């Protein structure tokens, strides 16, 4: 099990944070462009899922998988989106993304008066804490292969 990337978007589509750990392939776009593409894909996926669903839904989709990676999605009621890509052995990690929001984003971004609400988070403390949290997760276990 391993974690590849993490994106945090706010409700306006700005990428608030991006980090990568064991990423093996670049998309060939700049990070900026890639974030835009990712946000665009997610918002299309959300409307796609909302309309295709045979019954009324409360939440949107929580993950999709291809033959090589799995993308997990969690959206807070305020429209903040946490997106994590991992390998295929990882199960449902909605609770981990929720924890990340409660324990790290809220503590070190929302409660930090110097953090801007519109652009990418610059706080080094937030970045360090987030990195520590992700590296400490059981699903981060990297087997050097």
């Amino acid at each position: 099990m391993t974690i590849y990337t993490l994106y945090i978007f706010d409700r306006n589509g700005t990428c608030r944070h991006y980090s990568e750990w064991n990423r093996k392939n670049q998309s060939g776009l700049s990070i900026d462009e890639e974030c835009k593409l990712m946000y665009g894909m997610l918002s299309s996926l959300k409307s796609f899922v909302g309309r295709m669903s045979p019954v009324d839904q409360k939440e949107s989709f929580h993950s999709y998988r291809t033959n090589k990676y799995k993308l997990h999605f969690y959206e807070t009621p305020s429209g903040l989106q946490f997106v994590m890509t991992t390998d295929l052995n990882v199960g449902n990690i909605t609770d981990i993304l929720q924890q990340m929001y409660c324990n790290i984003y809220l503590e070190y971004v929302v409660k930090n008066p110097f953090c801007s609400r519109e652009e990418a988070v610059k706080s080094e403390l937030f970045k360090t804490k987030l990195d520590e949290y992700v590296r400490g997760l059981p699903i981060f276990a990297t087997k050097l292969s």
Partner: protein
Amino acid sequence: MTIYSVYIINKGGGLIYQYDNNVPKIEVEKTFSYPLELTLKIHDEKVVVAFGQRDGIKVGHVVLAVNGLPVNGRQLEDGQDVMELLNNDDKYPLNIKFGRPKLSKNEEIMFAGMFHSLFAISVQLSPVPHSTGIQMLETDTFKLCCSQTLTGIKFVVLSDPRQVGQDSFLKKLYEIYADYALKNPFYSIDMPINCELFDVNLQQALEQADKITVG
């Protein structure tokens, strides 16, 4: 296995086959007196609930029938305008049936194209090399499984979120497509499938798949 619907998308993103197997019906019927507690608006030629979610009637539901008369778009079967009728206090009490709107043919075609592009973008955004596109999409109300053949045809199955074993069904679907659509001399490739044998065999496969979990 509960399979809601089946889609087949050609290599250009066009929908060439769609079949609804057992889509659950969500309908609420209620008698209202004037004034109506719900706010309705016209959206996409349908009368849609815009505000005032209550008693199982959700925002986004459409008016399906008034006093037992089915509604077509924004008009009743007998030609009366639904909005006019609902704004007229002499006609109350009215019995109105609300429900989740079914996908129209146009929407089905649009979403097939949309899925085709999402599939392509998911390949580009892959953090690991040589990834395929979306194979399984999980939501809290349904699960979408997709398999793409070497020739670029996508088979998409929507099923219950707790279901497993869609892979074998997708394989079976490909087999049926190869046997009864491709081998049909009157079928032209990448065009909508109108083959009787294909329909019959697909329905049989769906029935069989339904039985698997029951047994």
